[in-house]
């Protein structure tokens, strides 16, 4: 009996919220339990969770990565413009898709490097550096496409986004891989432990011999690379690319992370928490949609939930210190 209670206590409280919310939806939301709807939810989770896993790393250090949404947009349009069968730079070649994917990852890497260096070399606050790179990235995407949409992506590629096994989209497996890799990175590797250490107390970490600057640099690389992967999924799912992709996604990303229980001050928070948070956010989006609730209500709700979740985190922290 005690074992059971301990296990219950150990699980994330948000998981309970999620389960309760699912139950509520089953009863109160029309056409919630349909195959179509479940597949829809699982599809929508993909891009959000992929990028959220990356931004999670930035939040672990008490900061954030605003540029993640622009990385999605920019990699989307550049990747699509390479592989597109009609207008692509490498249209029709067999290596078009791999080259496009490589380019997308490279762009993510570039953003990560710029963000990372700005923070560790110039000591610029992460939220505003990534705000600046977000604007630059969004602008570049707009400039590159001149507002047009790029389409006609190779079917062999878009199958990743549109295909599915029953109600489970192929994309979800890709996301699962990302979740597993990032979770593994944080839980089982030296780098992960260093990240938690630096996020908790950089001074102690420095004295204990942890390479603080290098660790922080890695955070931004991971974050941007995840955003690139999210871009890959996005163009596969949408079968096209436009510079407006992901432009409103940031609030959902931060909601997933903070509602999931990761502390905005840093040092604490598992990937699994963010997974739960992402599902909850998508569920809220979808259920509200099905209920015919306007988007702005969801907007208000998410903002309120972030405030509440952050307050609870602070309350927990001060109790621990007392």
């Amino acid at each position: 009996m005690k074992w059971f209670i301990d296990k219950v206590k150990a699980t994330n409280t948000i998981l309970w919220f999620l389960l309760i919310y699912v139950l509520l939806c089953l009863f109160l939301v029309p056409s919630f339990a349909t195959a179509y709807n479940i597949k829809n939810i699982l599809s929508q989770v993909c891009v959000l969770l992929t990028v959220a896993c990356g931004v999670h790393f930035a939040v672990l250090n008490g900061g954030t990565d605003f540029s993640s949404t622009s990385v999605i947009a920019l990699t989307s349009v550049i990747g699509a413009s390479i592989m597109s069968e009609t207008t692509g730079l490498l249209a029709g070649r067999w290596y078009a898709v791999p080259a496009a994917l490589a380019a997308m990852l490279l762009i993510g890497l570039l953003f990560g490097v710029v963000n990372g260096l700005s923070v560790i070399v110039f000591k610029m606050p992460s939220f505003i550096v990534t705000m600046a790179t977000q604007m630059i990235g969004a602008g570049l995407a707009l400039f590159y496409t001149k507002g047009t949409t790029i389409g006609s992506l190779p079917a062999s590629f878009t199958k990743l986004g549109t295909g599915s096994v029953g109600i489970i989209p192929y994309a979800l497996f890709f996301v699962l891989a990302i979740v597993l890799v990032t979770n593994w990175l944080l839980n089982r590797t030296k780098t992960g432990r260093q990240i938690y250490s630096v996020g908790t107390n950089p001074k102690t970490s420095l004295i204990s011999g942890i390479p603080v600057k290098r660790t922080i640099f890695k955070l931004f690389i991971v974050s941007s690379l995840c955003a690139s992967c999210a871009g890959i999924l996005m163009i596969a799912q949408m079968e096209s690319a436009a510079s407006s992709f992901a432009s409103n996604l940031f609030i959902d990303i931060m909601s997933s992370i903070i509602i999931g229980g990761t502390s905005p001050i840093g040092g604490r928070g598992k990937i699994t928490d963010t997974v739960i948070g992402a599902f909850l956010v998508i569920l809220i989006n979808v259920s509200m949609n099905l209920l015919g609730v306007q988007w702005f209500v969801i907007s208000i709700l998410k903002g309120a939930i972030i405030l509440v979740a952050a307050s609870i985190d602070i309350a927990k922290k001060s109790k621990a210190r007392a």
Partner: protein
Amino acid sequence: MTHQREYALELKNITKSFATVRVLTDVSLSLRRGTILGLVGENGAGKSTMMNILGGVLKRDAGEILLDGSPFEPKGPKGAKAAGIAFVHQELNLFSNLSVAENLYITGLPKLGKTGLVNLVRTKRDAKGKLAELGIDNIPPDALIGDLPMGQRQLIEIAKAMISDAEIIIMDEPTTSLSTKEKTNLFRIMHEQIEKGKSIIFISHILEDVFAHSDEIAVLRDGKLIAQKPAAELTRAEVVKMMVGRELSKIYPTVEKSIGEVLFQARDICREGRFKNINLTLRQGEIVGLFGLMGAGRTELLKCLFGVDPVSGGEVLIDGKALERLTPQGCIESGMAFITENRREEGLLITKTVRENTVMASLDELGKRMFGVLDFKKEQAMSDEMVEALKVRTYDANRQVVVSLSGGNQQKVVLSKWVVKKPRVFLLDEPTRGVDVGAKYEIYSIIGDLTRENSAVLMVSSEMEELMGMCDRILVMYNNAITAEFHKGAFDQEKIIVAAIGGQNHEQ
């Protein structure tokens, strides 16, 4: 309202403990109106604690405080201020982005009539006037604090206290950054305040000054009042004796060991604005103590030796070989360890578990596999080994977060973090601060064991008895330099304290 009581302030039978550590035992001080009471004692004697209790920052466990004869309950800094007590703390509390005048009057700037706007002209003029009154004539009132050197900043901090209508002024080591001229000025100001009927408690370790300017002197030692007498009835030698004259009754572990070759050398360590050519050696198996009073530069020296603070010159050698990079990582690679004086903020990840803290400096060793995957088995073994070896009292090292451990156990966790790496040179900064008696002895044993393995230990401590019991040699620092060295067998409490307060041995 005129005060007629003889005593402006009386602290009676003050007792205070932090958890199980008793820091003040039945201490009574009395401050006669219109006099200066000099308060002396080593670090940790209880002076700061007394003042913090008076200032409402800490709550006393027992005893009472009488302000002008009436009971006084300190309610925090504002309460103390309202009651007419002003503090000049050792750590300055100024705003570097505001001017001198603004810092002086920030809680009550002069206003323009009814508009509520600040009267800039009057602020500047009042400040200038006040500074002139205090004889501080070379600091312009509109200079930014951020542009002033330390000595002048300290003067402004003092001026702040003098400006208020405080009847009682407590000054904690007010002369540390002052030039000789500034010091003379300060004492003149103090006496002027006395003539105006104010009363001052003057905490200082410079006995010369204390004797020259105090009417009465009180000596604290190990949380007890040794004596409070008129300065005329005391000699410096007597005061020194009272500061350190304890029965060395505590037992320290004896270690079977031999002192070997030179292991660690610091050569001509320089740091701009602080250190000039510091030299230090440690031999295998040696425990060297570093004694000194607050501000002597001990912690700063250790930080330089470990590469936490940058040095502008000099080198560190292990086994005769100079370290390539004087950084924490470089030092650790060469087999050094550093236990800081502030474990909560620099030694522990306070919200993480015992196990995580124990292994946090050993991640390179645990992550040797491909991709840096951690060897969990090894990690568990490390954690278990340390918990057992150092007798860390925790209900579950894998689950208990260190914030809930006692001070002594927290310190053991910090020690574990380093001991597990088997370093050869340990830099310890106040390793038993805030640790209860039982854990203290255990920590002494741990330190002793280290030297049996031919490691060397450099131990900073403010507890002379501890150093005398543990060390093979004691170095004394004063004013950012090593000024004296004592060998075991020639340890002398009074000689050590005299070196620490910067004086020669005077017979009076």
